[in-house]
């Protein structure tokens, strides 16, 4: 029983990176966040969108990058990952 509870409480730390309008609204360009172990990218976006309006507004158009590569929404975030929220890009 004790062991099961411990497993549920297991957490990871990830570094979030914000850019363009998300960085402006967030007020920071990077932050460290503690997350439940096993959380997916899609779950992370849903959770953050609850308290971050600009992410909520853009969430359908945000692509997730983990450690500087685009990943699918179901990708699991691991301890130490760098997670970036990529709104539609407009370089060139």
């Amino acid at each position, binding site marked *: 029983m004790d062991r099961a509870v411990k497993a549920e409480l297991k957490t990871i730390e990830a570094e979030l990176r914000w*850019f363009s*309008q998300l960085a402006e609204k967030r007020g920071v360009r990077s932050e460290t966040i503690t997350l439940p172990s096993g959380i997916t990218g899609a779950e992370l976006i849903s959770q953050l969108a609850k308290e971050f309006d600009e992410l909520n507004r853009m969430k359908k158009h945000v692509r997730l990058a983990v450690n*500087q590569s685009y990943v699918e929404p179901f990708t699991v975030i691991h301890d130490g990952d760098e997670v970036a929220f990529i709104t539609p890009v*407009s370089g060139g």
Partner: protein
Amino acid sequence: MHHKKTENIWIQIGGELPALEEISKFVRRDHCGAVNLFEGVTRNHDSGKSVTLLSYDSYDEMALSQCEVILNRAMKEYPLGAAAIFHKTGEVPVGEVSMIVAVSTPHRKESTQAVLAIIEQIKQDVPIWKKEFFDDEGEAVWKGGEISSD
């Protein structure tokens, strides 16, 4: 400034743009009769509005690795001798260059096709964002960020 230079690929995100001569010399190869250099320049208008300035934000490290992915793919799809991408970050006033894409190929048509394909992919995948400043003192806007959640 983030950059990478191998034998056939040269990428730079941020910093000052290298001189065109230097870029041309880098991409030139003896079996390539064509060098195409494309410069993206800040234009004084967009979608009917007068633009005075662009400001680029960038996820530098990932922009660099995405450009590398794009150029490696282009090297497979086109007969490129060598290829290069340079992108400024920060403010780029009207009339100044924000981006350079350069390639060499044996023949001329494939040089322009490759350059256009590379730019297309930059505009799709490279995490660089442009904020447009207008002369009517309206609010500056992140290009592509106007999308509503509906």
